[in-house]
C-alpha cells in the first residue's frame, strides 16, 4: 500500500515539476568531502557504532560506513554525522 503511494507521489512530482525531496518522503543526503554527512527525512537510527551507522528511511535502510563516526547532532527528521566517511549506500 505504502509502495503504491510513494510511486504515485513520484509520478505526480515528475508531472508537476515539483522537487522530489519535497513531494516524496525520500531521504535527502548531503555529503561534504569525506568527513560530513547530512541526512534529511530519516526515520530514526537503527544501528550506531564507530564504523557504521544505519538509518531508517522511507526508501529502506541507509548505511553510512567509515571510521570514527559520531553523531554531531540529531533531530526528528535531520541528522548530522561526522567522521571519516567511506561509503553511503542503501541496503536492500
Amino acid at each position: 500500500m505504502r509502495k503504491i503511494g510513494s510511486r504515485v507521489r513520484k509520478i505526480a512530482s515528475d508531472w508537476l515539476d515539483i522537487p522530489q525531496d519535497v513531494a516524496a518522503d525520500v531521504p535527502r543526503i548531503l555529503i561534504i568531502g569525506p568527513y560530513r554527512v547530512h541526512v534529511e527525512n530519516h526515520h530514526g537510527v537503527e544501528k550506531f557504532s564507530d564504523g557504521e551507522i544505519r538509518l531508517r528511511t522511507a526508501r529502506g535502510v541507509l548505511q553510512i560506513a567509515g571510521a570514527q563516526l559520531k553523531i554531531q547532532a540529531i533531530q526528528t527528521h535531520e541528522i548530522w554525522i561526522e567522521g571519516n566517511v567511506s561509503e553511503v549506500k542503501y541496503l536492500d
Partner: protein
Amino acid sequence: MQQNHWRQSLKGSLHIELQGEHLADFINKATNAGLDLSRIQWLEEKKISLTLPIADFYRLRPFLRSTKTKVRIRSKLGFPFWIARVKKRHFFLTGFGLFLVIIFFLSSLVWSVEVEGNEMIPTGEILASLQEEGVYVGQMKSRIPDTSEIQHRLTDKIPRLSWVGFRIEGTRAILTVVEKKRVTEEEQTGEQGRVNLIAKRSGLISDIQIERGHPVVDVNDIVKKGQLIVSGRYGDNENNSGEGVPSADKIVGAKGKVLGEVWYESEVTVPMMQKRKVYTGVRERATHPYLAGRVVRLPFFSNDLEGEVEFIQQIRPIHLWKWNLPFGWVNEEQLAMKWVNRKLSVKDAIQVGKEQARAEILSRLGEDGRILEEKILHPSEQNGKVVMKIHFTVIENIASPQPISQGE
C-alpha cells in the same frame, strides 16, 4: 542545524555516558520527544557518550527506564556550573572583591602632600594653608576643590608667593610655588656701593648722570684712563675745604653714568670675491620612518638630488599620551644648491666693510653706546682685497667702579 555553542555554554550542558542494550532505540525515542542530543560518540560495544542541555537531562528518565539504559555523568560544562563552582569558593571571591574595593578606595586618597620651589617660606606654613583649603594626607581626592581655585586662594593667603601651581599625580598632591623676589639688603646699600668711579678710557666727558657720590670733573673736561671721575667719599672735596665739615672717612659710595666721547679706530679687510650659497629651486620632499634616532632610508622610495644638497629634517615622533615614542616619521626636504661667486666693486666693498666694523663696535659699546661719526681713512685695493681704516667717534659710558680702600 549548526549549534550555537556560546548559547549552549551559557545555559549549561552535560556530557553523559550511556550504557545499555538498546542504545539506537533510546536515541530515536529521545529525539522524537524533542530532546536536543549532540556529539553522540560510540565508545565501545553498548556504550556511548553524548552531550545535552541540563533541562533535557531531567526529561531523559522515562526513556532510560524503558530501554534499560544506565547513565553516568562525565562532566558538567557551561556557565551555571562555573557559577556553582565559584559559589563553593565564596570566601576567596569575597576576598578578591574586598581587595578590589580597598585598592580603589586607597587610591582615591591623598597620600602625600609635597611643596616644591620654596626657599624662604617654610614648608610647614604652606602645608598649613593647604590644609585649610582641604588638601592634606588622608583627604579624598574627589573632595579637593578645583585646581584653579586652590591656586587663587593660596596666592591670596600667602602674599609672598607670586605664583602657585597645584596638581595631583596619582596619590600625591604637589604644590609648586614661586616666591616673590625680595630686594636684598646688599642691593639697597651694600658693599658694592663702596666704590669710586674712574674712567676706563680716555675721552671727552659729554654728560654726567650721578645717582650717588660727588663728581670731581665737569662736562667737556678731558679725562685720561684711570682718572677719578666720581668720588664715593662724603664731603671729599680737597679744593674746597670750607665745606669739609663731615669726616672724610664717611663713605657713601658712587653710582651713576658718565658718558664720554671716545675714539676708536678699526682696520677692516674685505675680499672682493664673495662666495655665496644659492638655492637652485630644485627641491624634493620625502617622509622617512625613523627608529631609535636613526632615519630608515628606503632605497627605492627616496630619490636623492644630485650635486650639492642641503637637508632640512623635521622629526615627528609619535606621541603616546605624554611620552614620545622612540620611533616616528621624519619629514625631509632636500634643497639643491650651488655656490655663486660675486665680484664686488671697490665702493660696495667699502660699504660692506663699514657695516661689519659698525656692528663690531656697537656690540662692544654696551647699552649706552652710540656712534656719533664714522670716517673711512685711505681705502686701498690690494690683491683682490679692499683694506681700509675706519675711525669712529662714539659716546659710551666710561665710568667703571673701583673699590675705595679702607686703609686710608
